């Protein structure tokens, strides 16, 4: 079933706090083969003016996967078929880099839903803020739920 476009504008409750750890940043950097010292050495990050190690630009996908995707998949009224879901695009705007020690929340909103030829194009905004309300990253994503085979 295509998604119901009237879900556009729906905002899910803000997530719990995710605390960004040095070890997780390092693990993520290693998984993408990036040995940049600012991802693993607090002194190198501090020399560049950061309070602690910073995370690679795509690190916030962890928060998107863990919270925004979960909001969408676990919403029975929206009714996304996970097996037909494809990641169409992803974008990040950074107010500053994510860094170790950040205590972040994610607030996910359905921006638009377009249905074309039975495929549903679900455009999401995920606002990644500190628990004190400082905007750190705005993530946008398009998820495509492919039409069922004729």
């Amino acid at each position, binding site marked *: 079933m295509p998604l119901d476009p009237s879900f556009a504008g729906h905002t899910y409750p803000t997530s719990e706090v995710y605390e960004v750890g040095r070890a*997780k940043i390092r*693990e*993520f950097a*290693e*998984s*993408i*083969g*990036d040995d*940049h010292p*600012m*991802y693993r050495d607090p002194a190198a990050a501090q020399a*560049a003016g*950061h309070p602690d190690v*910073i995370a*690679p*630009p*795509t690190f916030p*996908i*962890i928060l998107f*996967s*863990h919270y925004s995707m979960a909001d969408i998949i676990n919403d029975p009224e929206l009714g996304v078929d996970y*097996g037909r879901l*494809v*990641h*169409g*695009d*992803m*974008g*990040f*705007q*950074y107010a*500053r*880099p994510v860094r170790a020690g950040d205590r972040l929340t994610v607030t996910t909103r359905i921006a638009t839903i377009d249905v074309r030829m039975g495929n549903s194009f679900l455009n999401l905004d995920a606002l990644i803020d500190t628990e004190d309300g400082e905007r750190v990253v705005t993530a*946008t994503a*398009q998820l495509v739920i492919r039409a069922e085979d004729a």
Partner: protein
Amino acid sequence: MTAAGDELPPLDVRVRRADLVRYAGASLDFNPIHWNDEVAESVGLPGVIAHGMLTMALAGRLVTNWTGDPSAVLEYSARFIRPVVVPNDEDGAQVELTGKVKEVREDGTARVDITAKFDGKAVLGKAVAIVRLPA
């Protein structure tokens, strides 16, 4: 001075199954199409494919290698237009990354357009980073 048309140093990355497993754990994306051939084939894929976000992360390395300071990246986006199929062997899949400065702006930022190719074909579309240039 950075100018429109400047090319970033290219980057080739070989991606093997073990890299996908490692990325799955690090990114918390455990979709089995990235590690299980049967599941991948059951949804019409030729086999296990790399996470689109892994390709995007590798393309991000091209940009941060060039800026030196990863925090110079102000915006980064990409579309996932073709899968990177990763066979279960030592060779894996080769992803070829190139980038070019599209525009230098008055506000001290630049737009970088990135090309990510696998098997001779682009796998990311509209892959763009906006970066702050050194003062």
